[in-house]
């Protein structure tokens, strides 16, 4: 009994940190269901999105390993967005938003982390201005391998790069060439065409420079 009490007392300080929750299964950072961002007179509306994360959502995208079930969301300014984040893998995943006003969201972030199969829900209020926010899972190589999305407020200010199925990467991959009979034939043809062109060019130069009787 004393042990349990002591344990509760030890863990209590988490509750004291505003917007922070943490237990064995999940963690929420910078939850904010009440405080209005600068420029919002009131909460414009409530909206809930369900976000699923897992390896299986990468299946439609060749070369991608982890993904969310959607790569882009649009919301109206000053919306209170409630995110129900469902992790369908046996590892950690995160729903992490960057670029929020740091006065309300320390380091400009809002984070839900679910430490294994399970879910967690939390809300935050979006600022009024037109902006595209980065949403990703910041576990090493998860963003890089597909767990990346965007949240557009008031239409957003552009699209982010390398969103699976939506946008191109900044640094695209180079793939090894496959040598088939056809490509070899094409190569040979191109070689001959090149030689013919050079021969033609040379003939032209000669025709122009050589004196003719």
């Amino acid at each position, binding site marked *: 009994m004393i042990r349990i009490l002591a344990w509760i007392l030890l863990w209590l300080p988490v509750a004291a940190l505003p917007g922070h929750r943490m237990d064995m299964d999940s963690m929420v950072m910078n939850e904010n269901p009440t405080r209005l961002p600068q420029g919002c007179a009131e909460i414009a509306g409530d909206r809930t999105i369900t976000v699923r994360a897992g390896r299986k959502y990468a299946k439609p995208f060749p070369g991608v390993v982890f993904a969310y079930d959607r790569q882009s969301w649009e919301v109206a300014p000053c919306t209170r967005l409630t995110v129900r984040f469902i992790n369908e893998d046996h*590892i950690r995943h995160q729903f992490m938003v960057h670029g929020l006003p740091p006065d309300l969201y320390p380091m400009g972030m809002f984070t839900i982390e679910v430490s294994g199969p399970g879910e967690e829900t939390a809300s935050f209020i979006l600022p009024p201005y037109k902006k595209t926010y980065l949403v990703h899972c910041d*576990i090493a190589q998860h963003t890089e391998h597909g767990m990346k999305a965007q949240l557009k407020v008031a239409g957003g200010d552009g699209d982010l790069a390398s969103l699976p199925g939506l946008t191109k990467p900044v640094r695209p*991959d180079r793939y090894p060439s496959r040598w088939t009979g056809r490509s070899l034939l094409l190569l040979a043809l191109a070689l001959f065409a090149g030689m013919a062109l050079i021969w033609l060019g040379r003939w032209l130069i000669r025709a122009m420079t050589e004196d003719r009787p």
Partner: protein
Amino acid sequence: MQRRGKIYGAVGILLFCAVLDVAADIPPPSVSEVGKSAKEPFCPPERPAEWRDAQKIDGVEIQEERVCLPDNPYAVAAFVKGTNNVSMPTLMKTRLAADSIIKRNDRDGDGDPDEIIIKLEVAELNGASPDTTEPVHTFAIAPGIRPAFWVFAPKVRGMATKDEHSTEANPLLRVPSPVIRVEQGDTVRIVLENTHYFPHTIHLHGVDHPFVDAKGEGNDGVPQTSEGFILPGGKRVYEITPRQPGTMIYHCHVQTHTHLAMGLIGMFVVEENRPDNWVQTFNVGAGKVRHPSRAVLERYDQEYDLQYQAVDKELHEIVQSSNDPRVIARRMNREYDLTDATEDYFLLNGRSFPYTLRESLIVVEPDQNVKLRMLNAQGELLAVHTHGHKATITHYDGIEVNPAAQITRDIFDMAPAQRLDLKLTTTNDGLHNYGPGIWVFHDHVERGITTDGMNPGGNISAIVYKSYLGADDVPKLQGIDLSRYFDTAFYRRQMPVWQDIDEWDSLGDPDARQAEAAESADGETRKRSPLRHLLLGLLLGFLAYILFTNRERGRELFCQYVLGRK
């Protein structure tokens, strides 16, 4: 006819150049070396100096660690008590997940927990990104050198970087894979949560483990004989109750020839059973054990874990060459040939000299007994030499040598995967020690003291007597200024090793002055690519050829327009 032959020759050469040019463009953008010459201080003010002190956190005694970059003592406290028992303020001063280490159930009533759950993730360091050509989650082994690594890591929470502005990895994600410590007789569940994009497993090398667990599932980590792969996003629990103590290993057994070299190997220490024995479950970055076990403290004043490993840069570059795991798999599993490989970088506890001096010093006082546990995680033989000391080999591969037959020597040779436990005595008797000082210890297979062939580098570190520690716990070195080694230019071979050896730089580069002047004049070093020279040469040759074959016409034109006569 001959003329036509010449034309074909020229065309051929041109085509060859084009192909060369393309080929030069294709290889992986593997350059994991940072930009221009950048000097770094010996001890960057990264971590609070108080972390070095001996202290007590949540009732856990933590020994001092007098080095520039000590372990986070709060993390040490969490490793000892378990993330489920440590206080919340302490846990918040670490980056550990709440379920990282669970310790509970004192079955035998001896005052320490006997049921341990350890969660591991797999992190990639210095990996590629589709959004930048620079490596991400960086970890430098030496100034400017960042090969890609895969490591096992304690389960963490939040960002994988140091902070939101940095690309540097969270300090818990680092090379080597953390040392794991458990107590003999504990029931330990090692949970591998595969956060990486490739399959992995854990093989508990030398640790007493049944081939199958209670449920009949494979427990040996070998995908071909005991179990399948742990795929990305999946997990597996390895269950053991080790009956024998000793210094052992854990490593991945998927494509072992590459996964091990990529960094998926760490020490696994089973400590002897004692009452009230809370062991430090993780030793992140290896090095000093700040909360040694009861059994170790009975015989020793201090304990250090030393993991030696090596990097073949060609292997580690593959990971940085693509974002598509299928391409990386192809290059790593089918194109890379380990039998043609050579190791280039040599690490002690994840770093090469001079970075070893920031965190892998063995700091001692006279008349101490220090326990060293060494692992050779390299691909080839290692022969560690300790200057100023002869140590005694007490254990081979975790098994004690008959005390009467124990050998005292100054070279400790280890085959790959071998472990040695050493007793280092700092008694100044001319045998065990020749007195206080700054005594280096390093591999005597000499490539091991280089970084890709540049010396000094590799796994050089030092045994430093406390009387030789100066301000900010920097050793009072008596030789040359070390700042040249804390410079990316040194390991990029851009600096003469003996630069400014005397007033008139008698052993510097012959053209150093001119080069320096030119550099400062146009702001940056001109690229001197051999390919560019080749292309320029070919172009000039081609022009010369045209001129030569049309020399008659050329002479006519020259006479007509320059000399003005017909």
